[in-house]
């Protein structure tokens, strides 16, 4: 999530996708690790929160955790 982006940020997209495409799970890939962003992501129904610096190790794990209906933060 890049909150400085105009129009819609990642959390807002996830929140909208949860309504418009209920079967789609969202995973955020971001450089932000502040608690505030993670809380907002949880509130928006995000199923995974992966730091960009850890993408190669954690992204696939986050997807598989979502398949198992668990969340990875």
């Amino acid at each position, binding site marked *: *999530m*890049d909150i400085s*982006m105009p*129009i*819609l*940020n*990642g959390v*807002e*997209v*996830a929140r*909208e*996708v949860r309504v*418009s*495409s209920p*079967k*789609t*799970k*969202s*995973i*955020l*890939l*971001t*450089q932000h690790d502040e608690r505030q962003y993670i809380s907002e992501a949880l509130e928006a129904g995000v199923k995974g929160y992966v730091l*960009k*610096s*850890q*993408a*190669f*190790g954690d*992204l*696939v794990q986050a*997807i598989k955790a*979502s398949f198992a209906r668990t969340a990875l933060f």
Partner: protein
Amino acid sequence: MHSTDIKALTSKHAKRPGFGSKSGERTNFVLLHSDDGEGFDIRAVHAKGKRRGLGLIGIQERLNAVGGNLSINSAPGRGTKLFDSDSAGGFQWRFESFSPMNHVLVRQSLKSLLEREGFQVVGEASDGNEAIRRCERHAPGYCRDGYQHADIEWRRSGA
């Protein structure tokens, strides 16, 4: 990597001052990136192994696919240069900042990563609104977003 690949990578940012490409007839080329930015510690990047930067992974994978070999010349505070050390010349391009290519390379790197893991990438989006539209259209299993809204949708193969 053929010149068309590089043009595909750079076309979105071709209007940037000092940013462009020129192609030659030969497919061998020198891929040169040169900037005067903050640079980085090459040994530290290599020490991360597969966890190194997504942009570098993207460049390296595309070079390896055509038999090239990425070489990096960088040091903290001394900028960065990237080039194909196997090149015999014939194609050369340069740009002033690494950031314009980053979003494209990040998406390509993630796409490669997911496909290696058995996922099928069914679409990409360049902003949040497009991501929502694509999710509605394709109903993918997952929608990854966040990095400068470089969005990728994917689902498991055969799903």
